[in-house]
């Protein structure tokens, strides 16, 4: 099996390895999506339509026109849906990322103990599970809020 297929399988198939593998998969996917968004965001606002010079050189009416054209281009349900998904991913990635940093510095890990059957890994401690689910809950709240902003789902 090629390295690419192996990478996709190990990244995208989190089943049967517990909560931490789900966290790993979601963290990686959200990281890639956010990075791609930043590239597209910078490209769409600064490079694609007109190039960087339109923002700094007169006549400024041209810059205003470019800005309006860009806004018109982006104002469709597909981009709105993308921003809704992005809201979920940014919240999840940032809060879960804080958990990972704390774990990397050993702050929210259990202490090593003598293993006793049935084994419960101390690497995924109770406080870590709580932070993970908080990140999922806040990301879901951000998703619902953005759904309302773009698609008015909560308004009568």
């Amino acid at each position, binding site marked *: 099996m090629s*390295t690419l297929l*192996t*990478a996709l*399988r*190990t*990244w995208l198939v989190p089943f*049967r*390895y*517990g909560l*931490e*593998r789900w*966290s*790993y998969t979601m*963290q*990686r996917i959200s990281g890639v999506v956010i990075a791609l968004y930043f590239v597209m965001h910078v490209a769409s606002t600064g490079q694609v339509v007109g190039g960087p010079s339109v923002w700094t050189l007169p006549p400024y009416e041209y810059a205003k026109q470019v800005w309006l054209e860009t806004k018109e281009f982006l104002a469709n349900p597909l981009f709105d849906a993308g921003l809704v998904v992005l809201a979920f991913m940014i919240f999840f990635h940032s809060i879960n990322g804080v958990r*990972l940093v704390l*774990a*990397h*510095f*050993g702050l929210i*890990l*259990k*202490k*090593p*103990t*003598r*293993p*006793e*059957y049935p*084994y419960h*890994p*101390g*690497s*995924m401690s109770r406080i870590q599970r709580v932070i993970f689910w908080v990140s999922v809950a806040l990301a879901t709240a951000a998703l619902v809020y953005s759904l309302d902003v773009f698609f008015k789902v909560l308004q009568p």
Partner: protein
Amino acid sequence: MLEEVKFKVLRYDPDKDGKKRFQEFRVPIRKGMTVLQGLLHIKEKIDPTLSIRFSCRMATCGSCGMMINGLPRLACYTLIEELKTRTVVVEPLRNFPIVKDLVTDFEEFFNKHRSVKPYLIRIDTYVQEKSNTMYLQSDEELVRYVQFAYCIKCGLCYAACPVVATDKTFLGPQALAQAYRYYADSRDEAGVDRLKPLGDGSSLLRCHFAASCSQVCPKGVDPALAIQLLRKEVLLRS
């Protein structure tokens, strides 16, 4: 009449066609029968060409690691009835080169294990080798590392690791857990010298804390915990 289950076993022989394929066997089972016993039934009664590696049959030697219904497990430690399925799919461990059928090559795995110097390093080497001096340890000092000393080098953690799957320069959970096991041992005097080789980008820091290693460890070693504790030491001290 004994109950039967179907064994789907991945077959691979580099000396024949070198192609991987699944072969099916029907195996009569009894209460308390392990997957290893099922494979030995196949080897003894149906197809003697099936290659398996095993030794102790009691989850101590770590020889019979394989993918059983998609998860890395010890065949001698997995009851057929606990799988709750009529079909048992058996494949060689992932992330290891296959030698033949279910036998995998552990050379790279053991090379990585050796690279972390899995032994006590003392300043007084003469005393260590020539005398029968005991290095006393308190219970608190023992508990700091004893969990990681239960490792039987079965390779299940290595097979479960998503980073090892795509980056062979990553040392893997087993070797890193052993690096911490000796670093945390109060009798070891290597100190930060153990940490320095782990400070590069790939040996340790490539771990993304998927913790699948700890999920599959049959001895409760929890390599993911050892790696995070080791990372803390590398980040703060080396």
